[in-house]
């Protein structure tokens, strides 16, 4: 996890979960970090602000939305995809 996008995402998640970025691994899930639904919404907001993208995340059905939040690696891949689509 050395690329810039991932680093920024890790920083956002770490900040929200109040842990050190070093504690976050690609396979870390947001549950592992104890982020509740409101915390997750804040993470999505911070990602949108950071990368100026619009994340298709629906808080009603977090696991069924188009945006994969299963772990940090999945979030990073999805964000890179959104950045690429933006052009």
């Amino acid at each position, binding site marked *: 996890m050395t690329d810039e996008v991932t680093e920024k995402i890790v920083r956002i998640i770490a900040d929200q979960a109040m842990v050190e970025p070093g504690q976050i691994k690609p396979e870390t899930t947001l549950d592992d970090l104890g982020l509740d639904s409101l915390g997750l*919404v*804040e993470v999505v907001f911070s990602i949108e602000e950071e990368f100026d993208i619009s994340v298709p995340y629906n808080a009603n059905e977090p696991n069924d939305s188009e945006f994969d939040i299963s772990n940090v690696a999945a979030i990073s891949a999805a964000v890179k995809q959104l950045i690429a689509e933006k052009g």
Partner: protein
Amino acid sequence: MRRVVVTGLGVVSALGIGRDRHFEGLRDGRVGIGPLTRISLENLSITIGAQVPDYDETEHFSRSQLTLYDRVTQLATLAGREAVAQSGIEIDEALATRTAVVMGSSLGGMTTIDNNYKLTYGEGKTRVHPFLVPRLMANAPASHLSMEHGAKGPNWTVSTACSSGNHAIGQAFHLIRSGGADAALCGGAEAALVWGTLKAWEGLRVMSKTACRPFSKTRDGMVQGEGAAVLVIEELERAKARGATILGEICGFGMTSDAGDIVTPSQADAARAIRDAMADAKMGAEEVGYINAHGTATTINDRTEAGAIRNVLGEHAARVPVSSTKSMHAHCIGAAGAIEAAAVLMALSEGVIPPTASHEEEDPEIGLDVVPNTAREATVHAALSNSFAFGGLNAVLAFRRFTG
């Protein structure tokens, strides 16, 4: 009939953070009004207000709380903590569902609304923070009070402009008296010293650019303030059983509507609210030892209110001290009634009648003892607190000193 007493009080106002600072300001006749320092004054003709001084939110709240707490919730929470601590009430499992929260707020999370209108309408920002809704909703202060103290009984928020605080306390009093709850956190909170609100008030052309001088012939309008006050009130027997210190008793509540004009008050209906509160408390005119006036320092309010008081109290009116503490903490709108209940509780429990500060010249149309500029020591056995709101909504509370 169940009796209802006050066992805890918390206040945050321009006179300071905490009940002691607030009382000290009232006793000294200290004016908490000054230049507004927290907002841009660009294109505003109103540049004064009554801000909570020396307030750093990070001293009182965690980062995750601040994400969810508008300033109005912060002030209410601080007042709630102080009130609960003073009362010594323990809201255990049995009491939780019997403890209500009733708060007044006219405008709710106005800082959140104002900042984000500016960002979106003004600056074209397309994305907003996810928690604006729970921050700005008017019931946020009441909900956070319930969460912090585990109060699981009835919980609601009253929005009746300048009468919100009195309506909230009065309804909580009714609820306990009628057996719907045994204890309540009640009061009001307002934190609307933001550009948009001040611009709107500017439009009404009722604002003073210099000071709030209620009942003074030289008055030139009202001044906006911010703050919160929370009272812990309880059914008398349970308060006595646990050995609580009783600050005063709430004995009566009167509420009426002018059904007339949206802004111009009606003397007859204000008088009716005062009379109803006194009748509810079985309080005679000669018993009233202090009135905390609505006293906004607009000519129409002050004369209408003075007329209503003279009308109800008759020849006794001239002998009753009547003060407007808005002269010091300004008009805190939805928190006004609650912050002014604090002044009444000070008079009842400490024997100090707060003055009407900034009083310069007697207005012969008033004809009352307005306690000009200097507090007065007196044993006050019974007191009234008036609130008369835009929309013609009148709410008057009647209190007595607790003597057993």
